[in-house]
């Protein structure tokens, strides 16, 4: 058995606290499952700081800590809290280097999750902060991806938003892009939908479809590699992007960027434009394998 992502995050955090005499801020860190096992069992004297339930002020406090060069980590246990937690980060920390030439690097660990958990705690909510300048957004789902993202953070003067997903914490394997040859369609999944997209790809391939996949980790800045452009241009039906945020958020923006570079059709499938209820019957869940398979088939049929 390989190392689970949760242990990688825990190790990174431990080393980060020691090396930079840094601080990890968040609510209910030490009491409630040590944030699903991603946090070393440390306390205030070691740099793990329990914030009070003052969500707006909390983001400001973390910003102040970052101004002092602490490179703090800020854990947002459910991404829906971004609405409160990120106000001062996106309006101060993210602008600080540009306006005041004061780097204010923060590593935000915003955690997405879903399934009968309601409209606030459920799903990813990075679209609400996506547009702000000075913010970098990543969504690593594997050990290597997380380590690479962290390495970038410690060299950077920017605020990093790491859009995590609870489902990925037990992940031990890596993902691989597949863009070799002429594909019928190329999937570009984000966050937890990457797991389902892989399954959908396999199923579709077994049925004779040629399906490529490009795993999206670096969401902002969104770099579209030349090899991706080539593969997409070569494909018959273009791209299907998948995400666990509302489809009219970041997903459409990224889809448009891909379209601009490739002139190919880029479809999206994310959360529906509706509020999630708590019961399974009324939830608003990210696309699963079947949804993705269906969508691919309908795109191909339409053409």
């Amino acid at each position: 058995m390989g190392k689970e992502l949760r242990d990688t995050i825990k190790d990174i955090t431990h080393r980060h606290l020691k090396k930079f005499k840094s601080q990890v801020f968040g609510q209910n860190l030490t009491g409630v499952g040590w944030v699903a096992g991603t946090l070393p069992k440390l306390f205030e004297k070691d740099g793990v700081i329990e914030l009070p339930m003052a969500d707006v002020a909390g983001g400001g406090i973390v910003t102040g800590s970052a101004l002092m060069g602490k490179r703090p980590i800020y854990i947002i246990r459910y991404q829906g809290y971004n609405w409160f937690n990120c106000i001062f980060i996106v309006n101060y920390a993210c602008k600080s280097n540009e306006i005041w030439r004061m780097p204010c690097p923060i590593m935000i660990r915003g955690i997405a999750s879903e399934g009968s958990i309601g409209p606030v705690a459920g799903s990813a909510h990075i679209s609400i902060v996506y547009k702000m300048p000075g913010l970098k957004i990543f969504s690593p789902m594997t050990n290597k991806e997380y380590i690479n993202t962290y390495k970038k953070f410690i060299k950077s003067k920017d605020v990093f938003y790491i859009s995590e997903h609870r489902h990925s914490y037990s992940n031990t394997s890596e993902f691989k892009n597949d863009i070799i040859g002429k594909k019928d369609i190329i999937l570009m999944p984000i966050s937890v939908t990457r797991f389902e997209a892989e399954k959908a790809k396999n199923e579709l391939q077994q049925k004779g479809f040629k399906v490529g996949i490009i795993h999206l980790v670096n969401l902002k800045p969104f770099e579209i590699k030349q090899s991706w452009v080539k593969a997409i241009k070569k494909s018959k039906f273009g791209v299907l992007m998948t995400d666990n945020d509302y489809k009219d958020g970041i997903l459409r923006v990224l889809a448009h960027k891909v379209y601009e570079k490739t002139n190919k059709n880029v479809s999206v499938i994310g959360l529906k434009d509706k509020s999630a209820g708590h019961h399974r019957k009324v939830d608003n869940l990210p696309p699963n394998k079947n949804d993705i398979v269906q969508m691919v088939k309908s795109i191909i049929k339409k053409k």
Partner: protein
Amino acid sequence: MKKNFTLTVFEKASVCRHFENEVFKRVSNREINFPVYLSAGQEYAPATIAGIVERKKIKPLIFGQHRGHSIYLSFGGNIVKLIKELKGKKDGCTYGMGGSLSIHSNEINMFGHDGFMGSNACIGTGACFSSKKPTIIFIGDAALEEDYVLASLSWVSKKKLPILFVVDDNNYAVLTKKDDRRDWKAKELAKAFKITSFDLKDDPKKIYNNINKYLFKKPMLINIHTNRIFWHAGAGKDKEKIFDRYLQQKKLLGKRGEIIDKKIGKKIKLLWEKS
């Protein structure tokens, strides 16, 4: 209290007053055409606090709000750089990016404001928590009402941080009076959070006598009543007759006050013309 404290504070206030008068002229004639937040009438709050801190040879972290000219100048910010900032020059204290609202200075540890009233309370609290450096947070009487400011006070108290909150109480949120906004006083609020607090006029001696001893030894909040002479933003007056602490102190200092006032006025006028 040492004798020349009043004089030191007066000199600082004089710099602020003459600076604001020069800005007033340039806003009136549209040489400066972005929102400008003048602090004339309120300079005794920062000038006094800066005087006390200077005596203690402490260089605190300073988190001001939008009405920050007098804070910057009182704590020794380079005046030419502020003039250049208001002229939008790259070598201004905030590299021409900050205008009047967002004054920043590495030299005096003053951190720029983002435009969200009261954000500096949380950010200053975080900076103090992580650095344990003496910190001063200036906020307006209205910004104090922001929920996140209240939350910051609570945490400052819990963590016993070396912070001084200075509530620059000019009674107004733009033009809405305190009485129309709330029924509590800053001092009572701070007390509820177990923060040592004072409610004082902008009289330098009174401020000195009350805060000097425990400054930065425990969290403190001081609500200082001031009078805004000019509009909330821009160049104009809401009222003609208003108590003016600067003029009162000048009168108290007699001839000396007049000489300082004239000398500083002349110097600042020249600096504005040259910079």
